[in-house]
């Protein structure tokens, strides 16, 4: 796959401009600056233009469809249509960019919230042995100083589930990609933080 150094609407507009000057579709490609040389060679060898486009990595792969019937159509009209489609793509890209700028702030905020809650919940889970002692303090009236450090209590399991779910929802809210992968990272981080906190906690109690 080859990647273009310029955006899709520029490619489309350039093709339209060259065709307006009287070139055909294949020849138009040769006048576009920075078009991959290997692909130009393949055009020279007689490959179809749609095959060439399929080996280009485009943001809108459907652009290829625009050229399928290009050889049969009335050129002047085609040029007009290419141009207006290029204009449309440009407008969309601008709008999307604007949106991404706006969303970036939110996504960053969301990311901070995610990490902060991840670490907080994991730390609370690490201190969970303390809660069971508090519980026994409330129910029986005396505080015991023996702690049971284990990952497999109901309490730490419920914290683990809450942490994963919370991150999953926040990831979904901010429309992120590869959600499952990130949730697995959260799972690992949670267990790591819990182990570290418990280690710290148990060493604190020993002295």
């Amino acid at each position, binding site marked *: 796959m080859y990647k273009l150094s310029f955006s899709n609407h520029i490619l489309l507009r350039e093709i339209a401009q060259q065709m307006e000057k009287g070139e055909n579709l294949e020849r138009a490609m040769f006048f576009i600056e920075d078009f991959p040389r290997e692909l130009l060679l393949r055009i020279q060898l007689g490959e179809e233009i749609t095959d060439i486009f399929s080996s280009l990595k485009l943001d809108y792969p459907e652009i290829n*469809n625009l050229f399928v019937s290009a050889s049969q159509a009335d050129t002047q009209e085609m040029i007009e249509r290419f141009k207006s489609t290029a204009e449309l793509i440009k407008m969309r890209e601008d709008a999307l960019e604007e949106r991404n700028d706006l969303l970036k702030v939110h996504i960053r905020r969301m990311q901070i919230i995610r990490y902060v809650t991840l670490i907080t919940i994991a730390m609370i889970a690490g201190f969970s042995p303390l809660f069971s002692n508090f519980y026994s303090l409330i129910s029986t009236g005396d505080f015991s100083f023996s702690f049971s450090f284990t990952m497999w209590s109901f309490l730490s399991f419920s914290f683990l589930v809450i942490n994963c779910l919370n991150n999953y929802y926040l990831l979904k809210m901010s429309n992120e990609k590869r959600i499952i992968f990130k949730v697995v990272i959260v799972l690992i981080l949670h267990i790591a933080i819990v182990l570290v906190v418990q280690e710290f906690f148990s060493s604190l109690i020993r002295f």
Partner: protein
Amino acid sequence: MQFSIIPKEFLYRITLGKIRKHSEDFISENDLVKLVVLCNLAILSFFVSMLLCYFLIRLNLIFMLIVSIAISLSLFFVFSDYVRSNIIKKHRLFDEVAFLIINSLAINMKSTRSLPHSIELLLKKGTTDNFYKKYFEDMIFNLNIGVDENQIIAENSRMFQNKKHKYAFQNLKNSDSFIETDPDFLIGLKREIKLIEDNMVIFVAISCLLPLALSLVLSLIVSPTSPTLLLFPLLYAVFGTVTLRLIQNKSMGGKNV
């Protein structure tokens, strides 16, 4: 055919809800199979957790039932919602390129003057999305067996949610189907941003602080060996999924206007 313990029609209605109508063409056979498997798994997990609760933890009957129902429901809700949001994502990706598809169809119509031929040209090269590929293949199939073209066009315009795209597709045989501007797209983007802005505060307040505070309080008043503690994250799973689903439904409702 997949064996389903509860009726499929009912299952699809509760899991897919609004998108059954909204994104009908993007629900693949595979998704439906996944839902049925999930449902069966949830029911299986209900019995397994009942057994576990009974033999391992020795809970009383009512409590055993509540815990198992919570486990199976949350499992079912969270994973079926994952399938559901994947369908929505597929539809959104299609919506983003719909204008290019219609424009290429319009160009093809101009040069070939025949609907089947122009759709064939559209499918010939560069279709990356298997969904609309299958969709248009079905259209060609219908055209080949002799269904009326106008009828096919009228029926199949349902795939395009954006009204402008829909009209353009319906007018494919006239020459004015070409899309030159797309104001709905910009409005949609603005709405999306506003929706995220509005809901983020609510969601963060409810979803992050509530589980944290409640689980802290719960752990103090409930014995650490009691499985009541398990109920809370599971209920949170159901609750959070429902909240997110409501938000999604809201954004879908906006798209149709």
